[in-house]
């Protein structure tokens, strides 16, 4: 039973790899008693029937039924993390949920929306080791009630080349075992720096919307972009914009109204860190 940000999860599984992953990545998270109400119960079960033993599978069970197609047993831990994301994005409509990383400095948040593969997780993983607090690497939670961005503070997922990039960039960072041959390639999760966990329940006001794009060999460049276009792109990157209807649209407009919006291209993480430092000091 673990709390991450505003949600509590009851996590169960017969797999050793899940237990080890949880112990490494969530060892310092607040743990609740087993009989406390859990927002979501995530069970990563063995495969059904013969698939329990023959080419063994793992399945995400929610409310007693499977949600996705089964995956190989070796993918059980990433499946757990993806399942936790699904629980939030499919149900937590008290938030406008945007597919984006969110980081914070000085009480002000930067949202980094991007489709998969644009380097937002790598950028996020790098920045949280250089003075930015992690709110989330995947799901930006904008409260419909107060318009603030609320932290989720879960381990950062990294894939393929990004894993080595971050290992070199921050040798002290801790990673779970790498899972190979997933639909996204090789995948792992990076432990959240312990100091950030203390601020797990502290929201931040949005100040910057930065659309990152990794471009090999490119210098770091922050270019202003229109707010109107940013509203459209944020809506496109949102999980539940359609469900929220008009209030969701109004909340999104309010959010962007008070923010500065940029396109950001980069190739070297160190350049990116300097660019974000400049952003933070420019007020």
């Amino acid at each position, binding site marked *: 039973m673990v709390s991450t940000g505003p949600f509590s999860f009851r996590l169960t599984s017969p797999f050793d790899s899940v237990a080890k992953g949880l112990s490494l990545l969530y060892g310092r998270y607040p743990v609740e008693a087993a009989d406390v109400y859990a927002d979501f119960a995530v069970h990563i079960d063995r495969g059904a029937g013969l698939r329990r033993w023959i080419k063994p599978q793992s399945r995400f069970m929610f409310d007693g039924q499977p949600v996705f*197609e089964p995956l190989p047993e070796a993918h059980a831990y990433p499946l757990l993390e993806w399942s936790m994301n699904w629980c939030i994005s499919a149900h937590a*409509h008290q938030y406008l949920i945007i597919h984006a990383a969110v980081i914070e400095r000085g009480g002000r948040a930067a949202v980094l929306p991007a489709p998969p593969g644009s380097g937002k997780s790598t950028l996020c993983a790098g920045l949280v080791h250089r003075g930015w607090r992690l709110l989330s690497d995947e799901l930006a939670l904008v409260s419909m009630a107060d318009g603030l961005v609320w932290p989720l503070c879960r381990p950062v997922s990294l894939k393929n080349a990004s894993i080595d990039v971050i290992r070199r960039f921050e040798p002290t960072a801790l990673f779970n075992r790498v899972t190979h041959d997933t639909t996204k390639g090789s995948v792992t999760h990076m432990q959240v720096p312990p100091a950030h966990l203390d601020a797990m329940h502290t929201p931040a006001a949005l100040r910057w919307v930065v659309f990152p794009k990794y471009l090999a060999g490119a210098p770091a460049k922050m270019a202003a972009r229109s707010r109107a276009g940013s509203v459209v792109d944020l809506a496109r990157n*949102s999980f539940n914009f359609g469900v929220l209807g008009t209030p969701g649209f109004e909340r999104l407009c309010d959010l962007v109204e008070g923010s500065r919006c940029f396109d950001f291209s980069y190739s070297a993480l160190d350049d990116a860190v300097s660019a974000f430092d400049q952003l933070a000091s420019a007020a």
Partner: protein
Amino acid sequence: MSIARRGALWMRLAQHLRDGPGLAAVPEAPRRQLEAALVTGSSICRDMISEVQRLQQALAKLPERCVLLKGAAYLCAGLPAAKGRVFGDIDILVPQHHIGEVEGALMAAGWISHETDRYNQRYYRQWMHELPPLTHVQRGSTIDVHHTITPPTSAFRVDGASLLAAAVPAAPGSALWVLQPIDMVLHSAVHLFAEGEFDRGLRDLLDLHDLLHHFGGEHPDFWPRLFNRAQALGLQRPLHHALSQITFWLGDPVPATCRDQVLALRPPWLPRVTMGWLLGTALRPVHPLCHRPGEGLARWLLYVRSHWLRMPVHLLLAHLVRKAWLRQFPTRPARPASTDAPATGV
């Protein structure tokens, strides 16, 4: 919450609590989830209204009446059964001889059949009372086109024309049609007690309960007409099971003046008691926390019974063997679903 969600009842639960004691009475953590459920409920309702409007436009040029069934009907007629409902497909009833034109008009508007298996196509068109589901190419909404409410080969076959002839407007001045109240109730009863699917059994039972109380209160001659219509359509047994299960789970809805007519519906002792046990077990929520021994068997027996009722024996056996085979050895290999792609379609 988990049981309610699994049974498609969590939005109904949220609305019930909001309209009753108020959500402030609920502890904070589940209250947040119930509030989120209300948001989902409004969204699903909006989408359904929008789809029904598009359906109307698609069929506007056709002269024949198109009657809405089930959830879409409850919503358009403003019935209590629509509150907090998880709407899924739109079910419509059209005259059998016009089914081709209806399918053509829907295809032109973007709803097409994705059923490529020739056996399944034949199963639907030859033996069943409905076309294979039509799914919209862009929006993904589904329409089930029926020409009657039970399979033509069924022990409880019903002439679709008599239902269509008795249809009423969904609301005063509305261009949409729904079944008359007594037919709506009988459809709900036969759907639950002859179809054999109990995933949303409790939800369907609650629908029926809502319909009975609403119509019973609004129309003074509802109950006598209901019994007469059940007799005329040969649906006494499904109605008997419906009333006895509702009495068991939710209390007796029938006025005292109609006791004799309720008793007249009763099948012989053995099937009555057996079905009573089977249905009472099968209607329990489908969820590991509610599981009792015998549930799996009861649901399986009712599933087999539903097929027994709808098809001749020789077809039934071949059909069940084929389904069991495909369950073990599906024709398409399973692929992991995309797990983190956000919704598109702004």
